[in-house]
């Protein structure tokens, strides 16, 4: 997925000399190609993210198309106010890329983890939020991001989970992509890294549908409501706080237009206390496949849905 990001970014920069990449001294290997092909469009703003976002706003006002890169713990979280006031208020075409979202930087602790970025940005008017699940979704997301519509946040989480699609899926702003068809009582909506987990666990509920949500804001309310109506229960998964993220967005739509059982799976309202690998932390936070399966089982019991099919080896595999 990182290759797709780098490659598409370079292509876009070659096609549009107004595109400028700003980084807060991050992305060393990631931008090798960019620096080789478009050295004049690369700006290292130093370890000074607040200024970098303000400068991006000024560049956008002056006719350029800035792409601001950082770890998601810093861009957007450290610079939330600059994004709000300098960029969103004026609806400037600035693309923010938050890398390593979720608990990717497991061993580095809370300073480098971000499970609040979607919630924080969803409340900013004019801001769009993209969250691709694989390299193909990344390609489509970047096409959307480079449309000169206004500020965009591209959330890049765990990037080495393989692919879900076989070609760049077609979706427009807000659209969900079905990655597994099913007319059973359970539907799954996941974003980013959790689409893979959803596909893994959904196998235990035959005929359940799985959707990827590469675009979290805007989110197609009609499409989400239709999913809610077609199924008895909707499981939403994200590597983000259960407050204010995709789960909340789906629940808001369901509550207003198509009430159904919504199970929000994500990071509970707490920090990562302990050091650990990605595998350790996803397990510790209850968002790895076996934990998700357990939570969903319990939830569906309350919702009156049938229990999962025991698949031979599924527990060991998970």
């Amino acid at each position: 997925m990182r290759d797709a990001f780098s490659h598409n970014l370079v292509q876009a920069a070659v096609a549009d000399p107004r595109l400028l990449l700003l980084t807060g001294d991050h992305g060393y290997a990631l931008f090798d190609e960019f620096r080789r092909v478009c050295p004049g469009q690369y700006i290292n703003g130093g370890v000074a993210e607040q200024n970098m976002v303000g400068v991006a706003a000024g560049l956008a006002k002056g006719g350029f198309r800035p792409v601001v890169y950082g770890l998601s713990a810093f861009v957007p979280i450290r610079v939330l106010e600059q994004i709000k006031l300098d960029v969103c208020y004026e609806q400037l075409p600035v693309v923010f890329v938050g890398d390593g979202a979720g608990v990717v930087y497991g061993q580095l602790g809370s300073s480098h983890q971000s499970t609040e970025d979607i919630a924080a940005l969803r409340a900013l008017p004019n801001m769009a939020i993209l969250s691709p699940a694989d390299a193909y979704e990344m390609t489509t997301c970047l096409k959307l991001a480079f449309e000169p519509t206004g500020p965009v946040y591209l959330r890049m989480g765990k990037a080495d989970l393989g692919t879900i699609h076989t070609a760049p899926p077609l979706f427009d702003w807000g659209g969900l992509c079905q990655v597994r068809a099913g007319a059973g009582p359970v539907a799954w909506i996941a974003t980013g890294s959790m689409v893979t987990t959803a596909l893994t666990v959904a196998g235990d509920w035959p005929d359940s549908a799985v959707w990827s949500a590469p675009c979290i804001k805007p989110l197609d309310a009609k499409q989400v409501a239709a999913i809610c109506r077609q199924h008895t229960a909707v499981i939403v998964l994200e590597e983000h706080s259960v407050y204010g993220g995709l789960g909340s967005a789906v629940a808001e739509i369901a509550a207003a237009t198509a009430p159904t059982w919504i199970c929000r799976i994500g990071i509970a309202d707490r920090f990562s206390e302990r050091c650990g690998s990605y595998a350790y932390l996803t397990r510790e936070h209850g968002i790895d496949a076996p934990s998700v399966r357990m939570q969903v089982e319990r939830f569906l019991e309350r919702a009156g849905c049938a229990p999962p099919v025991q698949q031979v080896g599924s527990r060991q595999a998970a």
Partner: protein
Amino acid sequence: MTQRFDSTRIRRTILDMAYAGSTVHIPCALSIVEILAVLYRSYLRLDARDPRSPTRDYLVLSKGHGVMAQYACLHELGWLSDGEMQTYFSDGTRMKGLSDAHVPGLEVSSGSLGHGLSVGVGLALAAKRRGTSQRVFAVVGDGEANEGAVWEALMFASHAWLNNLVVILDANGLQAMGSTTEVMDMEPLIEKLTAFGFESREVDGHDESALCRTLDELLASPDPRPKGIVARTVKGKGISFMEHNNTWHYTRLNAETYAAAMAELTPREAAAA
């Protein structure tokens, strides 16, 4: 007829706005009157018919609390009508109490401090990259300079050799809760600007000819560094009972103080007659 951007007239406009809107933040507008007056009169290359002209010079009011001074200048330019000036701070208008970029002529939304300078730096960088001769004049408060982002912006401007950027520090010596030396002593400001890579000057911020000399010198300088001016000013300048009296940062005018303040600002037309 007095000259354009007459400082007394600008101060009277500020008081009219503040009285009509029953608003605070009067003294921090009064301290930058001469700075804005000389910039609008002699340095900013603007298209009188198009506040958003893409070739304009930029006046970035990073200390957004002084916005009444800039509104007064936009009024002098004819970009804000008499009627609109009377609606400052009023329901349903665009005349907000802090600098707001949705108003043509105001370049940044500030008031949350330490934002505008970085946006100005971005505008200066954009002009450099496009190869235009556009200049950016950024007015920053000395209280605002407590913000770390201001120093990030100065670092970046110097690193990028933005000699089309002029940062004017309105050193009025007072911030919301006290004197700048009590709250957060930032002196010596000029040495700090110089240390951050700026070609710097210190000047009496109410002396228009001194301001002009300093600006002329800096703008003509072959030195590739960005330009910095520490403008020594008086918060509340021009109104005796507001000068150096920080309670006026959060005080509104009433009929009596409005009349007393206006009485101290005899229009030059009347004085000459």
